[in-house]
C-alpha cells in the first residue's frame, strides 16, 4: 500500500468513527428524551432535588473535564512522537476516569442503599439508565485506553497506533460533552 493510500484509509476510518459517534448522539438523545418524559414521575418517591448533592457532582464534572484536558495534551505529545509523555498523560487520564467512575458508583450505591434504586419509580429508572449508560461508555473508554497503553509500550507510536489514538480521544471528548448535558439537565435542572 502506498503512503497516500494509507493516509486515505486512515481518514476513512476516522470518518467512520465520527459517523459512529453520531449514532451514539442519537442513542443518548433518546435517553435524554426518556428522562425528560419521566423526570416528574416519582410515584411518591423522592424527586431529584432531595437526592443530588451538587458539590459532589461538580467534583465528578471537574475530574472528567480535567481528564479531557490531559487526553488532549496526550494527543499533542503523540503527534510529536514523545512516547514517555504520552504514557504519563494517558496514565493520568486513566486515573481521573477511574476516579470519576468510582464516584459515580458510590453515588449509585448510596441511592440504592437508601431504598431509592431504579425499581423505586419511573424517574429513578430513567436517571439510573441515562447516567449509567454514560458510565458504561466511560468503562469502555477506560478499557480501550488500557489496551492502547499496552500497545504503545509494545509497538510505539506508529501510524496505526496514532489512528486508533485519534479515535479514542474523539470518544473521550465526546463522553465529556455528553456529561456536560447530564450535569445540566439531570443535576442542575433537577436540583432546582
Amino acid at each position, binding site marked *: 500500500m502506498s503512503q497516500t493510500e494509507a493516509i486515505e484509509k486512515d481518514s476513512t476510518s476516522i470518518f467512520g468513527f465520527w459517523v459512529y459517534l453520531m449514532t451514539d448522539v442519537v442513542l443518548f438523545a433518546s435517553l435524554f428524551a426518556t428522562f425528560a*418524559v419521566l423526570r416528574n414521575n*416519582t410515584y411518591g418517591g423522592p424527586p431529584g432535588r432531595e437526592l443530588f448533592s451538587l458539590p459532589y457532582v461538580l467534583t465528578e464534572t471537574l475530574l472528567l473535564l480535567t481528564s479531557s484536558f490531559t487526553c488532549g495534551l496526550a494527543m499533542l505529545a503523540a503527534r510529536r512522537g514523545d512516547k514517555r509523555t504520552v504514557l504519563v498523560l494517558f496514565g493520568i487520564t486513566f486515573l481521573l476516569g477511574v476516579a470519576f467512575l468510582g464516584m459515580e458508583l458510590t453515588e449509585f450505591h448510596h441511592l440504592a442503599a437508601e431504598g431509592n434504586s431504579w425499581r423505586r*419509580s419511573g424517574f429513578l429508572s430513567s436517571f439510573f*439508565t441515562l447516567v449509567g449508560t454514560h458510565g458504561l461508555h466511560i468503562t469502555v473508554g477506560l478499557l480501550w485506553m488500557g489496551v492502547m497503553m499496552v500497545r504503545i509500550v509494545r509497538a510505539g507510536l506508529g501510524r496505526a497506533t496514532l489512528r486508533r489514538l485519534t479515535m479514542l480521544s474523539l470518544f473521550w471528548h465526546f463522553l465529556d460533552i455528553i456529561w456536560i448535558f447530564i450535569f445540566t439537565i439531570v443535576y442542575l435542572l433537577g436540583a432546582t
Partner: protein
Amino acid sequence: MVFAELLGRLNASALHHGGVEMVGIASMGLAGLAAFGYLTYKRRWKWLYREWLTSVDPKKIGVMYIVVAALMGLRGVTDAAMLRAQQATSVGASHGFLSSDHFQQIFSAHGTIMIFFLAMGLMFGLINLIVPLQIGARDVAFPFLNATSFWLFTAGMMLLNTSLAIGDFSAAGWLAYPPLSELAYSPGVGVDYWIWALQIAGIGSLLAGINFLVTILRLRRPGMSLMKMPLFCWSVLGTMTLVIFAFPILTVTLTLLALDRTLGMHFFTSGAGGNPMMYVNLIWAWGHPEVYILILPAFGVFSEVVSTFSQKKLFGYKSMVWAIWAIVLLSFLVWLHHFFTMGAGADVNAFFGVMTMVIAVPTGVKVFNWLFTMYRGRIRFTTPMMWFLGFVVTFTVGGMAGVLMAVPPADFQLHNSLFLVAHFHTMIIGGVVFGYFAGLVYWFPKIFGFKLNERLGTYAFWCWLVGFLTAFVPLYILGLMGATRRLDHYDASMGWQGLFIVAGVGVAIILAGIGFQVLQIIVSIRQRHKNMDTSGDPWNGRTLEWATSSPAAPYNFATMPAVTTRDAFWTIKHDKNPPKPHYTDIEMPSNTAVPIFIAAFAFLTGFSIVWHIYWLALVGLLSFVTLIIVRTTSDGNEYVIPAAQVREIEESRGRS
C-alpha cells in the same frame, strides 16, 4: 438443586409443545439434517467454510444475506398461510386448528420475521452485492465490520428460531407494545426472545448502516461526483442515513423494555411512574423511518431497471435525488400517525396527518419520473420490468389508502382494522418485495454469471400479482366491515367468512408464485450453459457494475474505470478508443472466522439473558469483548494479488 439453579429458568418444560408446533420443529429439523447430510455427502464443508462462511467479500456476504432472508421468507410465508387458514375456518362453532396463544405467537413471529429477517436481509444483500460495483470500488470501507454485521444478523435470526424449539415466542405482536409485553402480562420467555433477537440483529444493521454510508461517501471512483452517482446508490445513501438516525432509537427502546423486564425498572409499566405510550412513541420514531429504509432501495432498483429496459437515461435525475431526501426528512415527522387514537389532541394529529399526506408528493414525483422514463423508450418487457409495472399499480393503490388513513378522523375508524393490514401489506409486498424481486432478477447474471429463466419468472410474477390482489383486496373490504386485525375467531353472523376464504385462496396463489420462483432457480441452474453471460453486460446496462465480468472477480475491477458522466458505463461502452488495461498488484482483506465467533458469543449472551442464566451471559459477554480487543489490536489482515495473477484471472474471464 445447584445444577438447576445454574440453568436459570430453563428446564424440561421448555421443550413441551403442541402438535402444530411439533410439525414446524420437525420440518425445520429435517431441513437442517438434509442440508447437513448433503454437505457431508458431497464433502463440501471445507469449501463452504473457506469460500463462504469466512469470506469478507461483499459479493459473497450479499449472497449469504439473501439465502438467510429467503429461508426466513419461507418461514414467514408459512406463518401467513397458517394465519389465513385459521381465519377462513375458525368461525362460529368451529375454532380452527390453532389455539389462541399459538395464533398470537404466529402473527408476532410473522411480522418480526418478514420485516427484520426477510426485508432487511434482502435489502442488505442487494446493497452488498451492488453498491461497491456501482461506485467502482474494490470493497466496502470496513470489510471486517461488514462480515460482523452479517453474522450478527444471522445470530439474531438463530435466536428467533431457537424460540420455536426451546420455550416459546412473543405473543405480543410484532412491535410488542407494553403494558402487554411487560413482565406482569407476559411472564414467559417469548418477549425476551423477541427483544434479544432484534437487539442483536439491529446492532448488526446499525453497523452496516455506518459502513455503507462511509463506503458511498468515501470510496467512489474519482470523477463520480455525488450528482453522477447511480440512483440505486443515492437511494442507499438515503436509507443508510435513516439507519444511522433510526436504529439507535430501536437499540434504546429494546434496552429499556429489557430493563423493565429483567431489572424491574419502570419505563413502560402501567404503574410506578412508567409510561406505556412513551414506548409506542419511541418504537415508531424508529419504526416509521424503518419502512422507508425498506422502500427506498426498492425505489433505487426501479430507477435502474426502468432506465435500462426503456433504453433511455432516467427522466428527472435531479428531482429523483431531491425526492429521496425529502422522503428521508419527512419520514421522521410522521411517526404519530401510527397512533392517532392515543389522544394527543386535534392540533398534534392535524400536524402529523398533513405531514403524512405531504410524503405522497415526493413519492408521486418518483412514480411520474419512472413513467416519463418509459415514455418513448424502446421498452423490453423482461421480468424486472413486469415487477415494476405490477408495483406501479399496487403501490399507487396502497399509497392512496395510506393518504386516506392520514386523515385522523378516518383513522379513528380504520385504526387496527384489516384495512390497515391490507394497506401496509400493499406497500410492503407491492412495493418492497416486488422491488427486491426486480433487483434480484436484474442483477442475478452479475452475481452468478447466468440469467434466470424468463418464462418461469413471468409465471411467478402473474401468480404473485393475482394472488396478492386476491389475498388483500378482501382485507380492505373486511376492514371497512369492521374486522379488526389479529382475530383468531369470529361469529358466523358477521358475514366475513366468504371474504376470508377468498383471501385464503389468494395466499394459495402466492404460494404457487413462490413455487415457480423456486422452480425458476432450479431450472436456470440446470440450463445455465444456455444462459451464460459472457459479456458482463447482459441487459445493455448503463452503470458501472456492468463494466466488469460476470461474476466479478474478488477485486471487482482489475483496472479502475474512468467516470466522466452520469451513466458512466454507457459512455465507456461507446468510447471508440478504450484505454489498454494496465495491471497492478491488488491488496485485499483476508478471510476471517472472527465475525462468526463474535456473533456466536452475541447469540450465547442473548440466549442466556432470555433464560436468566447470568453466569453464562457474563461468559458470553466477556468472550465477545475479548475477541473484539484481540481483533482490533491486530494488524496486517490483508493479502496481495500480484499483477501477473490479476492478468491471468482477467484473461481467463475473456475481458482483458
